[in-house]
């Protein structure tokens, strides 16, 4: 029974890495937001499972927060923003999708190489779960730097947070306070970003970063 429990947790962690790759693969805005909703869903399921096997009921609250806020509220809000701002619906990556995914594989290999020797004392599955969590963070960062679109950068930022949640719940005993404060700060950051997006859109009629770059100020 124990082994199955660890296997399922491992499967959720790996599934999150898979969904992070799916995020890198998307080339349409609505697909991106839906995939992010799936990302948040997988995280909340993983946290719920951890709550079950660690017998830590406060993690259920974390899971429901993740589910409610990140899998339902934020994607719906983002869908509305996209429609309201009339943002261009295709996402253009800086380099091709193939190269981005190749870089993603390299990042996963890097996190495995970093994590596995460090955590030599822990069990195999826990070590791999930590390696997967680090890869989710790195893949989120990769998404932020390889897309030209501000909305996709926001989503990348939020997927980084999902990876951190995965890492924190994987180890036993993360208090709820930390989670609430982290979620609160993310929410605040999101509101601020949303306000900025509105202002940017009003001012410059676009949220494409390349176009915004020209208005930056002093030119070399």
């Amino acid at each position, binding site marked *: 029974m124990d*082994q*199955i429990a660890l*296997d*399922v947790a*491992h*499967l959720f*962690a*790996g*599934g999150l*890495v*898979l969904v992070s*790759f799916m995020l890198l*693969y998307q*080339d349409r805005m609505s697909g991106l937001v839906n995939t992010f909703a799936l990302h948040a869903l997988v995280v909340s399921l993983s946290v719920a499972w951890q709550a079950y096997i660690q017998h830590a009921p406060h993690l259920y609250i974390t899971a429901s927060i993740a589910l409610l806020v990140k899998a339902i509220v934020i994607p719906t809000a983002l869908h509305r923003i996209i429609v309201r701002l009339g943002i261009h619906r295709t996402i253009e990556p800086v380099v*091709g*999708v*193939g190269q981005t*995914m*190749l870089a*993603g*594989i390299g990042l*996963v*290999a890097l996190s*495995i190489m970093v994590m*596995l020797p460090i955590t030599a004392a822990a069990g*195999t599955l826990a070590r*791999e779960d930590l390696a997967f969590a680090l890869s989710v963070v790195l893949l989120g960062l990769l998404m932020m730097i390889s897309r030209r679109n501000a909305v996709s950068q926001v989503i990348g930022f939020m997927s980084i947070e999902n990876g951190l949640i995965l890492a924190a719940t994987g180890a036993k005993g993360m208090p709820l306070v930390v989670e609430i404060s982290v979620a609160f700060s993310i929410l605040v950051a999101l509101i601020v970003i949303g306000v900025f997006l509105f202002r940017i859109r009003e001012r410059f009629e676009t949220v494409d970063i390349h176009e915004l770059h020209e208005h930056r100020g002093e030119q070399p």
Partner: protein
Amino acid sequence: MAVILGLLVQLCQMLIVLALAPLLTGYVRKVKAHLLRRQGPPVLQPYRDLLRLVRKEAVVAASASWVFRAAPYLVFGTTWVAAALVPTFATGLLFSYAADVIAIVALLGSARFMLALAGLDVGTSFGGIGSSREMMIASLAEPAMLMAVFTLSLLAGSTQLSSIAASLQGPETGLRISLALALVALVMVAIAENARIPIDNPATHLELTMVHEAMILEYSGRHLALIEAASYLKLLLYLSIISCVFFPWGVAVSGQGFEAYLVGAGMYVVKLAGGGLVLAVFETAIAKMRVFRVPDFLGAALMLGFLAALLLFVSQVK
């Protein structure tokens, strides 16, 4: 005596595979039609199609060579052999040790090689389009399939499909992330190789959406029948591989006796029906991709397969 029995069972499998293949395609078409609120053609229609085509005269272009006329037989032969080597109702059949899963992938590659050559043989632009796109798709789909297959072989400690199926049936495997990644990669490759939506549309004859159909545009009569039969067999082959590796419950082991074989055969038909249903639902729910999005799709499959193998290498599985 045991050898003769084993030979008979193996021949039985070959005939079952050949008999079920058109039925599977007919069933998938029927389900798709019902999902689109149509009646659709009868489930046995592919048999009637094959029979009709086989009796017709074959019209061959004046500029075609013996490659054009021999390719259908070779394509059918290699695909049939490959399909016969995949365990369906029982593993460990007599000839299953002649070729392992790498050889099966290579046999499908042979079939594709001959078909691509046949596309170029008549010297029209349609054939060229089909061949060049098919080889582009294959250049990514075949490595992706090989990486997924490597993952399975590393897990099972063998490249024999029978051994892989047997070991994945056992209790030590459990749920492994590499298996999930390999399944996703294999499903993506299966869609690409069988020319289903979103890679290619099997029901269309428009140049913009053709890959497989463009290569066989010049074929007619018995040649076309053989090529259609080969594509039915290929779909059956991929569904058989996926079901025998990832859903191995109910498969008999060679020598277990007639009842075990019957149970295995029944389970096999159920798995095929389930796989066909999922395929039909998936094809109806999704739109076809642009041709140059296909390399991204297959590149993703290759990456997933590679990641699955990498994870196994790293976790020191022998």
